[in-house]
């Protein structure tokens, strides 16, 4: 776990992530400017750090209703504005980028942040960027696998010899600057069915698992498949960290939390996926067995501890800003996390 900078004696790591969505507030119909949204994301990272939150990450989506296409640039600003919080991408679509450039960027952010940076590489759940950046979506899987392999190789070796289908070969190429400690944690972002989790396990790469909604036990299948395939591939699963990522919103009571966040989640889904979030499913998500962490601080603590018992994961990251949630609500959430949720979670998950 040290290789991935995870110290289990401190308990489950708690982080925040944003997709960088830029969506009108459904309650007012108004949308803040991209400038304001980006500054609020940077401010959010600062607040998170002050509240003792372990991790903050920003994603890239290249389409309408998003503002952090250049997510590494936003992360560089966050690196400069913070001192101790870990920062990462959530996720970097390695399929449509050059792994050398991505590594140069993130190694630089790691130097700016003095060793706090990680990369989470994903395959994209929204595929608008394939057209925009000149890639064929039919190569969806192969683009990711090949470029992710190269990214991992660059992380392991400063001088790289490599050839593949989608990029010019590298002959004794030095990829610099190097991160502060020579390499940095690189995770594979996994969503949906276990197939992708199995690939992460076979490669012995840490896994970020998207767990947006539904029974926690469903996601346990992907986690088991991941550990099983890692073992089959000769890796020790106890050395490979797992993180989950999903919707989060806290308020004084569970009812209030649901009431405040539902319009945002519903509108966000409607605008980005073309279908809202069904109220019936959202109502069920209040159940402790459902993976969505929306509720009172007490309810969320119970949920996260239940998930931790089930998954044995090392990090959970919360998406609470989806769908135009106004900044003052986000600040209030961070306060509840810092004062009520974090202390309880750390207390009960610290490994002795």
């Amino acid at each position, binding site marked *: 776990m040290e290789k991935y900078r995870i110290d289990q004696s401190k308990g489950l790591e708690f982080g925040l992530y944003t997709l960088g969505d830029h969506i009108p507030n459904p309650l007012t119909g108004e949308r803040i400017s991209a400038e304001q949204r980006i500054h609020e994301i940077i401010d959010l990272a600062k607040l998170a750090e002050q509240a003792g939150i372990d991790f903050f990450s920003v994603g890239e989506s290249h389409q309408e209703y998003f503002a952090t296409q250049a997510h590494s640039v936003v992360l560089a600003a966050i690196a400069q504005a913070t001192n101790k919080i870990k920062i990462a991408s959530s996720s970097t679509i390695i399929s449509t980028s050059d792994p050398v450039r991505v590594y140069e960027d993130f190694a630089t952010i790691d130097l700016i942040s003095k060793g706090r940076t990680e990369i989470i590489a994903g395959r994209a759940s*929204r*595929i*608008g960027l394939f057209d925009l950046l000149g890639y064929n*979506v039919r190569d969806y899987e192969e683009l990711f696998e090949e470029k992710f392999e190269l990214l991992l190789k660059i992380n392991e070796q400063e001088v790289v010899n490599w050839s593949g289908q989608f990029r010019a070969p590298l002959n004794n190429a030095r990829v610099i600057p190097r991160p502060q400690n020579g390499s940095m944690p690189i995770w594979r972002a996994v969503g949906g069915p276990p197939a992708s989790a199995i690939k992460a396990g076979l490669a012995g790469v840490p896994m970020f698992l998207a767990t947006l909604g539904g029974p926690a036990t469903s996601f346990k299948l992907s986690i088991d498949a991941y550990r099983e395939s890692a073992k089959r591939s000769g890796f020790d699963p106890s050395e490979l960290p797992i993180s989950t990522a999903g919707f989060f919103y806290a308020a004084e009571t569970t*009812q209030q939390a*649901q*009431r405040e966040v*539902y319009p945002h989640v519903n509108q966000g889904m409607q605008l980005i*996926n*073309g*279908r809202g979030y*069904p*109220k*019936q499913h*959202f*109502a069920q998500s209040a159940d402790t067995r459902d993976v969505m962490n929306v509720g009172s601080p007490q309810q969320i603590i119970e949920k996260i501890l239940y998930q931790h018992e089930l998954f044995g994961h090392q990090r959970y990251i919360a998406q609470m800003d989806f769908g135009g949630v106004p900044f003052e609500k986000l600040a209030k959430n961070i306060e509840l996390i810092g004062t009520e949720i974090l202390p309880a979670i750390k207390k009960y998950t610290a490994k002795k």
Partner: protein
Amino acid sequence: MKIVGISGSIVGSKTRTAMNYTLKSVNEKYPAAEVTLIDLAEYDVQFSDGRSYLEYEGDTGFVTKTIMEADAIIIGTPIFQASIPATLKNIFDLLPVNAFRDKVVSMLVTAGTPKHYLIVEQQLKPILAYMKAQIVQTYVFIEEKDFHRKEIVNDDVFFRIERLVEDSILLTETYTKIRKEKEAKYDF
């Protein structure tokens, strides 16, 4: 209430003829309803390539978005080679998982032979159920002999179409009302 009729084939005229009668009946009985007919023969719809339905452009984008905005959908389809036509299956493939959640879907079928009667039960309904449609269970099955030169000549078919329209609207109204009452109780 938004009602979309789909004429699911680019071959022949019988399904379109039957859909014309059907939507005329909707217009007469429910003048407040907003009715759109999508005759696939009139659109240049591309094959599904896996992207989100929001990202299709041109005719394909128009067809997918119109269907996704509907409250009720009346599907008219012929039967080819003991199955639904590829053009209709392509529409389903273009749409997302759970695309018909909270939508009512009813069906009208034209076929050259009564041997095709159960194709709807065995092949069309499972797709609609998988996509979460509220299905009007009874469908109208029209045979070749019920048509003559682009007109329906069997009075019984008129009555059956009338009942299909009534059932489609009734289920849409009832289901929408019940769902809204249920959702109001959630308090969020």
